[in-house]
Structures are given as structure tokens and as C-alpha cells.
């Protein structure tokens, strides 16, 4: 864990001005009150490009306080460019403590993964979301998708899963796998692997989702029912590997397949670097 540092002069606490943070907090409160509902908000320009986590950063900036400890992960790793940059951004502008340890963090901003270490009550997950609308591929018009959400008119969503089974014999949608929240709203869990979907269900942590380009916020309050779409005779199932992690030997974590030489030798290792390091220690 890196202890709190002195914030850089010239910036407001956590970069965003207080009015903007209040606006985002109002959107967050509404999102928590209606789990899975996409709340529009006046997303700001951030000092990084869309697609790099502008939505997540705005949410984190709005909920973070001086006593928080921040962890940022990208594809499960704490040491990739995006994760390092965002962590350093908040260390500089808010002077908060940062960490790579899942258990130590009070706020975890993430792209593509939910940590393997089970989350606890009081922790906040912040997801970076590229496309918030689960019905977008089905219907390009926003007016129509809003009507479909209002009427819970979601039957056609299964067409895509049907097509998977018809072609491949099983559901092949492997990430951003659509879920029903609290038996009411259809939600995109952001591009996390299907493997992480069960971690959303009745999680003790608060889950916040921010889409910067699309300017939408949605949320899962703690202990919310989250069910992945499936068929009665093709129930939802997570990915399985025949290997274990070749670094720490974990049998139960999400594995990355890494090509290690020019002859096509492969190595399977944990995608969650903190989890893997923790098992090695």
C-alpha cells in the first residue's frame, strides 16, 4: 500500500469541481435507487480519451474521499499502463492512498474484471463501460430501447443466445454477458468475462457503472439479485479450464493464455495479478 501523499496544487480535490461531483452523485443516488436503470448524466471532458475509462474516473472522482484507498485494475492486472495512470492520477489530484491489494482497497476501479478475492461490505466497485445499452445491437434507436426498458420488453434478447447454440452447440457469448437485475432491468455488466457474472449476484459490495462517451450511469446496490440470461435446457455456465495457473497453481481463477516464444509455446496464468501474487507470497 502507498501511503497518502500531498495532492498537487492547482486542482480541486479529485480533479472534478464540486458542482460536477454533486451532479454525478445525484445520478448515482438515482441509479442505486433503481438497480440496473441507466441514468443519463452530464459527462465532462476528462484529460484522457473516451474508451480509456472517462466514465469510471468521473464516478470514482465523485465518490472518493481523503480517507479512501484506491485500487485500479485493467484486465485483472494492477501494473498495466491504464491502471497505473489512473491510480497515479488520483494519487496526484486527491492525495489518496493507493494499493494493489483487493482486501485493502475501499474503492476499486476496474476494466474487464472483478477481482478473484471475494468483495466485502463497504467496498465500492467502479466499472468502466464502453456501451451501456444491452439492447443496442437489436435496436439502434434510443427512443425505442427506452420504451423497451419501460415495458420490460426483453424477449428478443434471447435470439442472440439461440443463434449461439444453433451455430456452436452452446452459448458462446463470453464477455459482456447480459443480465437481469432485480427481475426488472436488463443490464450490460460491461466487458467482464462471463466467468465474473456470478460475482455480481448478491454481492455485499456496491457496484457502480460509468459510461463516459454515452453519458450513462447505472448501479447494483449490495445484495441485488443478478441473473444471467439463459435457456431452461441450456443453463448459464462459466468458463472452465483444464489447466491450473502455471505460476501460482490456482485451480479456480480466470486464466490468461500467454504465448511465450516464437514456436507457439503457451502458458496459462491468472489474469488477476494481485490474487496470483498473494498465493505466491
Amino acid at each position, binding site marked *: 500500500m502507498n501511503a497518502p501523499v500531498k495532492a498537487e496544487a492547482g486542482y480541486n480535490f479529485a480533479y472534478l469541481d464540486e458542482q460536477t461531483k454533486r451532479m454525478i452523485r445525484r445520478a448515482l443516488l438515482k441509479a442505486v435507487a433503481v438497480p440496473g436503470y441507466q441514468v443519463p448524466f452530464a459527462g465532462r471532458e476528462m484529460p484522457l480519451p473516451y474508451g480509456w475509462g472517462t466514465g469510471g474516473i468521473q464516478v470514482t472522482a465523485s465518490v472518493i474521499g481523503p480517507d479512501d484507498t484506491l485500487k485500479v485494475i485493467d484486465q485483472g492486472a494492477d501494473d498495466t499502463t491504464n491502471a497505473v495512470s489512473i491510480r497515479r492520477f488520483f494519487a496526484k489530484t486527491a492525495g489518496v492512498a493507493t494499493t494493489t491489494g483487493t482486501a485493502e482497497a475501499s474503492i476499486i476501479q476496474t476494466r474487464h474484471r472483478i477481482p478473484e478475492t471475494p468483495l466485502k461490505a463497504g467496498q465500492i466497485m467502479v466499472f468502466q463501460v464502453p456501451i451501456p445499452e444491452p439492447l443496442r445491437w437489436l435496436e439502434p434507436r434510443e427512443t425505442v430501447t427506452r420504451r423497451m426498458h419501460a*415495458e420490460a420488453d426483453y*424477449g*428478443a434478447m434471447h435470439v442472440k443466445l*439461440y443463434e449461439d*447454440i444453433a451455430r456452436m452447440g452452446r452459448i458462446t457469448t463470453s464477455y459482456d454477458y447480459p443480465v437481469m437485475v432485480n427481475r426488472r432491468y436488463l443490464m450490460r455488466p460491461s466487458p467482464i468475462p462471463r466467468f465474473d457474472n456470478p460475482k455480481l449476484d448478491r454481492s455485499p459490495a456496491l457496484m457502480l457503472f460509468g459510461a463516459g462517451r454515452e453519458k450513462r450511469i447505472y448501479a447494483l446496490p449490495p445484495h441485488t439479485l443478478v441473473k444471467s440470461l439463459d*435457456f431452461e435446457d441450456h443453463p448459464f455456465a462459466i468458463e472452465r479450464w483444464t489447466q491450473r495457473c502455471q505460476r501460482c497453481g490456482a485451480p479456480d481463477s480466470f486464466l490468461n493464455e500467454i504465448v511465450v516464444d516464437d514456436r507457439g509455446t503457451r502458458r496459462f496464468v491468472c489474469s488477476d495479478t494481485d490474487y496470483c501474487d498473494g498465493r505466491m507470497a
Partner: protein
Amino acid sequence: MSDGPLLEVRHLTRRYGERYACRDISFELWRGEVLAIVGESGSGKTTLLNAVCGRVTPDRGQVLFYGADDRARDLTALSGVELRRLVRDEIGFVHQNPRDGLRLGFSAGANIGEPIMAAGGRHYGNIRRTAADWLRRVEIDANRIDDLPATFSGGMQQRLQIARALVTKPRLVLMDEPTGGLDVSVQARLLDLMRGLAAELRVAIIIVTHDLGVARLLAHRLIVMQDGRMVENGVTDQVLDDPQHPYTQLLVSSVLAA
């Protein structure tokens, strides 16, 4: 099951600006009956069809639909949710252009399965069996179930659309020029198929067409429209063999003898 009508249209009027698309149209439709609406382009046929399934809101008049519970519902007074649910469960629609009625990027099976899934079907095996069964009924080889409709001929696409419209067993099917753009032999097969299915399922059909041959072959009753008005209404053979209104006489006499 009562023997009352399935659909009652009363004094339906729809204007676009100063122009009347439909003027004071009233008719009834019974279960299992095939009704053809004929008339030239711009006579209000399609507006009438769209008003019957709630896509167009009439300026005046009522559209009473008797659902599965035999209770009359005025489609013009229903809320958006109720209307869409009723239309989804009880009314099928076949477009003139299959591209408007099908999802061309998804397989034939998915196209037939979508209405089942929309109505809450969640068993893959059952959906697939039903889809295969319907492909057979509309004379498409069942081993094309995973092919994209884009690879189908025009006639096959139209039959696929009919299967998709009928799979949830609606009580009413609306067809807008279903044989338009098909060559004559394909038309004949399609008409044969529709006649068979209509009799077998006892589904009521309203078919909009400008082809009197189609009307003669398929329809029990006929409505002739001109300039938004219903100028003649009666049993098909009677209207076609003994037309009363000058416009109907013109229409009948202008059919080319083959």
C-alpha cells in the same frame, strides 16, 4: 368460444392534413374468415390495415378486437403497453417486402423462434422443434434452419415471414400485398399454402391486394376501396361477378384475361 365477430371496425376515419386516407369505414370480421381489401394505389388500403393493428391512430372511430377471453377491446383506446402486448400475442403481420418483416442477419430458425421467445419461451429444444416444424409447414427444407434468410429466394423469404407470423397462433393475420413482386408460379404456390393454413388453423386473415385474382382465390369476402371510401362490400364471387359500383365494374373489366 362465442360465435361473435373477431373484429369490428366502426366509422374509422383517418386524415393526413386535408386528405382523407380512410373515410367512415365500418366492417366486421369473423373467426377463420379471409377478407380481402382491394383498390388502387393510394385508396387507403394500407392505412386501414395499419389502423387495425394499432400502427396508425385513427382520427375518429373504433377498432374493437375480441381477444382470447372474448372481451372486446378498443385498440384505439388502449395504452401503448396493452396495445403492443395484444398485437404481439394475437395479431400477426406479413409485410410486402420480407426485409421489413424478417431479421436478415439471423438464421431462419431464429426468425421463427423470435416471436416464441418474445412471448416468454425459454426452452431451446422446444423452440427449435417448433421452428423446424413450421419450416416444413411452409414448404422450406428443414435442413435450412440455420441458413440466413438472405440466402433464400423471394418466395422462400415470404413463406418464412408467414411462418414467423403464424408460429404464436394469432387469431388474426394481416397481410400487405404478400404476393407483390413474386412471379406468377411462385404466387400460385404461396396462395395455395396460405389457403391451406388459414383453413387448418381457423385464423382470420385480412389481405390487402390490388390483384383481383388473389382476392378471388383466397378471400371469402371483399371490400373495394376508392379514394378512402368503402365503395363495395360483399361475398367475393358476388362482388366480382356482379359488381354494382361503377368503380368496381371498372376494376373487374380491366383484368386481363389470360
